[in-house]
């Protein structure tokens, strides 16, 4: 072997790191991205340690750096602004409450995703029960999903085009709402949040095989929904 002892030691460390990544299924991730993930992990571990010690500014910093992601996930799971706001608040209250349970070697983002998904599940269940009492039917078919008016609309765009897009969007969100909770969570995390199937499995506490099965089923259902949408003249595909 060539190189000094330090170089060989670094190579051994790097090899061990790559082996660990391969075991975790992250071998396809570029090196820069892996390094960024490691830095992010260290950064949040430090913030959590300070927050645990009673530093309120550290906890506020955690909220500032993660709130957009939490809100977007909650909005995608629940479909409306008010529920997303309430769910986000509950997420951070739980994060503060269970700070002691977080281990430094854990991935904070994954831990946060797990809490978010669990809170959204609880909120959806409460809403479903409440709506069932009021209307006698499941709210998931209604969706509780609001129309998303906040798309950036270019002034030159055709009004009809915009209306069509808004309608398609509303229908797609409703389609998402019809999915079972587990399939919806798996699809949102994989398709919209960009996590790998292994990461999704870690967040949801299940196996990658199960996650792939759920994603496959969810995509097939969405495709059928889209076909009906196009057939009924809901709009032209984008």
């Amino acid at each position: 072997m060539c190189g000094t002892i330090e170089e060989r030691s670094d190579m051994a460390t790097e090899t061990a790191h790559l082996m660990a990544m391969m075991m975790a299924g992250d071998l396809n991730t570029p090196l820069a991205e892996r390094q960024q993930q490691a830095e992010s992990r260290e950064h949040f571990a430090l913030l959590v340690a300070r927050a645990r010690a009673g530093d309120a500014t550290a906890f506020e910093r955690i909220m500032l750096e993660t709130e957009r992601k939490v809100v977007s996930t909650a909005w995608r799971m629940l479909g409306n602004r008010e529920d997303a706001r309430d769910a986000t608040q509950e997420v951070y209250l739980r994060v503060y409450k269970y700070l002691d349970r977080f281990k430094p070697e854990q991935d904070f983002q994954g831990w946060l995703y797990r809490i978010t998904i669990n809170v959204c599940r609880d909120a959806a269940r409460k809403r479903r029960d409440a709506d069932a009492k009021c209307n006698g039917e499941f709210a998931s078919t209604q969706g509780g999903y609001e129309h998303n008016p906040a798309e950036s609309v270019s002034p030159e765009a055709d009004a009809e085009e915009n209306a069509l897009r808004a309608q398609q969007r509303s229908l797609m969100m409703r389609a998402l709402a019809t999915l079972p909770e587990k399939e919806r969570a798996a699809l949102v995390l994989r398709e919209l949040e960009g996590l790998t199937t292994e990461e999704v499995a870690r967040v949801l506490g299940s196996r990658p095989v199960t996650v792939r099965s759920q994603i496959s089923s969810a995509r097939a259902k969405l495709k059928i929904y889209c076909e009906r949408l196009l057939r009924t003249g809901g709009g032209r595909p984008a």
Partner: protein
Amino acid sequence: MKCTRVEKFLPLHVAGDLTGRRARRAVTKHLTTCAACRHAVDEYDASRKLLRAAALPPDFGGAFYEEIRNNVLAQIKRDRTLAPPPFARFSSLFNVRLAYAASLGLIIFAAALSFYSYTRRTDEEATRQKMIVNANGQSSATPVATVTPPAVAQQERKDWQTSQASIGRAGGTTGEGGGRGAKSPLRKRPARIESLRSGAQPNLMLAGHTPSNAGRNPRAPNSAGTSQATNPRELATGSNGGTATTELTEISRIEIQTSDPNIRIIWLAPGTDSAQPLK
């Protein structure tokens, strides 16, 4: 690979989630020749694109996020959990499993200790009951058992044989003992008074008796058939009132031969220091 089989792999294949090199190769090869499956792939792509567009979160604005932060911090202050509880600082020192193991060990130890004390108490209670029964049965003394030393027992046997022989020669029975008193242990005893002095006393340790009181009731054997004790009740003073104690002491054996040669009184009295002769 047939279309029916490929259709099942397409939802994963379109996003690169299909694991297994063989399956990926087979699907890719099939797609090069099958237009229907290629059309299905396009539909999957379109639905995914629609979904991503539809699920693009709106811009909620800075005030929205600030409201969330303020509400969370206010709730935390309200719950007075801004600073973690004091013990939380030390929570990292505690291993939950170790704590569970330690508490389980404590519970087992406490159970074993209580069981041991219970069985010991039960044994002592049983011993005490036995002594009380024996004391009641013998009415004036509190012996637990009588043991005759081998030399004395041998002497008694000889005396008995002698007395039996003399009774047989007399040809009759007197008193309630008589020849028919074979069942009565008293009939078999020689007509004499016998006491166990310190030299002849059995070296036994029994509940309720102290070694120092072994010679408490010195009575010389008297073949006259009467007790030398001025007061028979004095002989019972070795007893401590009929109550059993848990101390181990020697036992005094007093035998008093009554006027009836066939009747003999045997006392087994504990010899205690504090015992006083009855007056």
